[in-house]
């Protein structure tokens, strides 16, 4: 049996995640949805912490709550008329279909997994993850980082103003 604090924390965080996740698509204002999305991300990090996955929790805060949300802020600010009205969209049916697909996928995984195994206490996950990433799975890690580097360089190339362009226009 888990300690009561963990159980209480799990239900609080799960409620917060689901509630703010629901408010993400119920809010009419896009920025309000963004705020709820960040709360949802943060409580998700808390859920990871209750599973003693400290590295994943910190990565969740750092990448999703800290960076992805800033990316969305920039997307909202750079899109005309996007910030004031979260009105109905023509993409509602494709969105529903893809959301249903993802939900059924997660449900299938949850149904199919054998949850009866003994829960083991991890002292620290970050050392294990680091050794696996730079040992056994180093190739996948390098491929992912090279892909990200290509994306970065490609984005700079797309928006970079070449000399002949600026001379031609000015």
């Amino acid at each position, binding site marked *: 049996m888990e300690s009561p*604090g963990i159980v209480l924390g799990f239900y609080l965080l799960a409620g917060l995640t689901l509630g703010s996740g629901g408010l993400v698509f119920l809010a009419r*204002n896009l*920025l309000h949805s963004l*705020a709820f999305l960040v709360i949802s991300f943060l409580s998700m990090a808390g859920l990871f912490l209750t599973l003693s996955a400290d590295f994943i929790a910190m*990565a969740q805060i750092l990448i999703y*709550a800290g960076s992805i949300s*800033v990316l969305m802020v920039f997307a909202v600010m750079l899109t005309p008329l996007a910030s004031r009205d979260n009105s109905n969209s023509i993409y509602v049916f494709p969105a529903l279909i893809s959301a249903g697909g993802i939900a059924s996928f997660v449900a299938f995984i949850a149904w199919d997994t054998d949850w009866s195994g003994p829960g083991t206490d991890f002292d620290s996950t*970050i050392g294990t993850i680091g050794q696996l990433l730079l040992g056994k799975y180093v190739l996948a890690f390098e491929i992912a980082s090279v892909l990200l580097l290509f994306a970065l360089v490609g984005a700079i190339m797309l928006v970079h103003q070449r000399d002949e362009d600026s001379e031609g226009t000015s």
Partner: protein
Amino acid sequence: MNLDSPTPMSRQIAEHSTLIERFLGLPKIALLIFVLLIAALGLGNGIIGYLVVAGELDGTWYDIRDLGNVNAALRDAILSSQLNTYIAGALAYLIPAILGATGIVSVVGGWLLIGPWAERRLIAKFQIRQGPNRTGPFGLFQSLADALKLMQKEIVIPTGADRFLYFAPPVAVFIPAILGWAAIPWAPKMSFADMDVGVLFVIAISSLGVLAVFVAGWSSNNHYSLLGAMRTIAMMVSYEIPISLSLLAVVLMTGSTQLSEIVTWQSTHNVWLIVLIPFAALAFLFASTAEINRTPNDIGEAESEIVAGFYTEYSGMKAGLFMAVELGNAILVGALMATFFLGGYTMFGLETWIPGYIILATKIGLVYFLFVWIRGTLPRFRLDQLMGFAWKFLIPVSIILMFIVAIESAIFIRWDVPAAVSLGLFGLINVTGAVIISVVWIRILFKDLDLAAPERPRLVTAVGGLKAAKEIRG
């Protein structure tokens, strides 16, 4: 005293009595009391230190060097009491947590009352003024009076403001400023949450402040606010990279992401990391001033350009909270700087005599003094200069030096010589490498710039400013 100085300003400087002179000018009885207090403090600390070193106080709950022992004793007492297992477990978790949180909040809150006074007095000294000296002894109650004044002010909500998002940011910016303290070790066993992922936690928490700033700027429905918020976001996102890179160098050198382990590594090798990896320390210091919106990088709220930046529309205590969180962040950065680069709560063996938290508080105060000094000295950077400095200079040089540190850390594990030899060598390599790479990189960046003919301030010459200056000089 040299009263024949040429300008009124330098005469004023010469007439201005120094701190020591003014201290000796106090009444004799006050001096006597002060000396007695100092003597009593030294004697008491000496006795306690002797008892601690002699081993008579060691390991028991009243050992004052770290309050973790008190906590552990309290936990054991609760767990071994006659209570129900669940209730005892919950209490053993809750009571130390509440105690630690109270400690952190009172440290931050106490500093928020003393800090503004110290900063204003210090800057006044830099600018040959007096500073606040009316309210209370030495003007100490000035910040209290300011806070009361701010609370009495009317809260004005701008028309068209997003009422839902308008009230969240002044509170939300405090969350990272308080949460960041959780990972700081104050003494060997005295840390609120000494987690394995401490460095990641610090980076993750510091990235949360960006959103509160953006929401504050956006919901105010004001161009200055939005502009300030976007500037702040661009700056914070850019400067998170140098911070992460310099902390990565720390982690590579010490081989741990736990903050207490980093401090222990520095104390066992008797070296501060600022000596070993000076560029990382400087990059961290500079980038964190950008992260917390302090001069010379406070373009998010540059008064001369965009009023007050993202909190232009906030009034009363809400604006006060934004100003206060800036100060709280400054001491948090001071604590991080002390922990990562200045040896944390250790001081080459002094920590066996003096409680570690006093040493850490002293170091925090020193870093804070450095921040105030910078604020009193340097002008503000321009936005493009600031971003260019991050992207064109700090990040490339940090990456190159991080590679060097990575190679060194690989050698350090395998090389079988005394740590003093290898670490001394690495420190030399890092210092010279940082200087050489910085110089070479600046040469490459500015190879088109003609340094032989610097631009003269034409207007000043035209109106005779330089000539007048020459005449005054003699």
